[in-house]
């Protein structure tokens, strides 16, 4: 579905992604794990078109994504929940969700998806007319995810959904990610919480300073000595 080939991204003189290649297949949950600064968020930003690769190719359903505008990438079916949630704090919950469906013209479909988001996150329905800046961190994460779902993505990119959340919220968020996936949305998950990420993913890639150093079935990676030592604290 999504294929990255030899992607090189620079921040000025800093070589952030040094030729990474990976793929996500339809229906999968794939996770990118790695420590701070490994290039996980950079990878997602590049897929969404916020950063431009200097070299390399990104294809989504056979179509080349490099050098097309971010809005066309969203229109093509890729939606991202950014790190730190980035909800529009000056707008209400419902306005945030409506912005998620910004490019959609099918009003009936949008209404249906709004209903679905409220079913997934009943808390958002309770707070729909509240300013989103007044929500708790966990609720903002739910809002950011709901907002991304409103574009009806085929591929959902999630950047550190567990960051800064209480353990009870983390569990809830991860079970919702599984639920979203089982209803047909492919997921690419970036996480520092490698343990949680590996527990729900089909496959995983391990990033280290801009390179992919390990990849494979997530159960096997979770059991491997290298990953356990570096990322699972044991």
């Amino acid at each position, binding site marked *: 579905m999504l294929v990255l080939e030899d992607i090189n991204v620079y921040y000025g003189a800093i070589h952030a992604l040094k030729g990474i290649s990976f793929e996500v297949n339809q229906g999968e949950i794939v996770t990118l794990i790695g420590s701070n600064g490994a290039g996980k968020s950079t990878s997602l930003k590049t897929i969404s078109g*916020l950063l431009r690769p200097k070299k390399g190719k990104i294809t989504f359903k056979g179509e080349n994504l490099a050098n097309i505008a971010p809005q066309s990438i969203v229109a093509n079916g890729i939606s991202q929940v*950014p790190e730190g949630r980035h909800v529009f704090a000056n*707008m209400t919950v419902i306005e945030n969700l*409506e912005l998620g469906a910004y490019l959609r013209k099918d009003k009936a479909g949008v209404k249906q998806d709004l209903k679905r988001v409220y079913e997934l996150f009943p808390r958002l329905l309770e707070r729909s007319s509240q300013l989103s800046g007044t*929500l708790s961190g966990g609720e903002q994460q739910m809002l950011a995810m709901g907002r991304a779902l409103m574009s009806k993505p085929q591929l959902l990119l999630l950047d550190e959904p567990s960051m*800064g959340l209480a353990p009870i919220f983390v569990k809830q968020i991860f079970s919702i990610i599984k639920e979203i996936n089982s209803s047909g949305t492919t997921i690419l998950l970036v996480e520092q919480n490698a343990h949680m990420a590996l527990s729900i993913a089909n496959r995983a890639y391990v990033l280290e300073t801009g390179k992919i150093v390990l990849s494979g079935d997530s159960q096997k990676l979770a059991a491997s000595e290298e990953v356990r030592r570096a990322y699972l604290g044991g």
Partner: protein
Amino acid sequence: MGSVTLQFLQQIVNGLSLGSIYALIALGYTMVYGIIKLINFAHGDIMMVGAYVGWFATTTLHLSFLPALVLAMMASAILGVLIERIAYKPLRNVIRIASLITAIGVSLFLEYGGMLLVTPQVRTYPPVFPDTIYNIGGIIVKYGDIVMIVTSIILMVLLHVIVQYTKIGKAMRAVSFDTEAALLMGINVNNTISATFAIGSGLAAAAGVLMGVYFNTIDPLMGIIPGLKAFVAAVLGGIGIIPGAMVGGVFLGLTESLVSGLGWSTWRDAVAFLILILVLIVKPSGLFGKNIREKV
């Protein structure tokens, strides 16, 4: 009513007229700042261009007030979009002082380019409105006062509806709050910025036409002082905040009128700036400014 009360109420009427002009200009300043964090110093000059288009429409084309106003707003909206695309857009991702200096350059370009084009000569607006004067219990209200205030209110209500309820308005708020997140929603940021310039410039043009009609005369440098005042009004209300610009503009107009009414008209600008300084000392983010604390 005592003469002091009468005088006071009279200055309130004058102040509201003047203030609604400041408010209309201040809105453009604040909207543009809100979306690209640029103080568009050419904004007052866009107002001047609007005043000239309105003058041209009423004299040469013999249009009445409303069509002239619409024509001026449209012409200035296009000018505003062109200025953004040509002068500011290429500088969007470089150090901010570059676009600030460019804005001053655009301002001078419009002022002195305008002089070349229409000569520095002062032009007189034709009498667009009847000279009717209403005497309401001793307070003199000119027909022009009413048109000015009513037009401003209508435009501000329209703006409020656009910003709060339309798709482009929501996109404008989204981009001004968090450009990167707006991109992830699929919002076309360039078009949204253009729309902001178009609306802000259109409002400035409306102010320009109203000023021409109200004060009768226009000239290529007429945008400088109202532009500065409107900038003060925008900062006073909290730059980037739309209701702040409205309140700031009206507040400034009222202050100036009341100071003049007390017989200290030479001090009115000084008082306006003094109030600005005091507000900024007590509340640096302006009257309506608030610091939204981000929850993590």
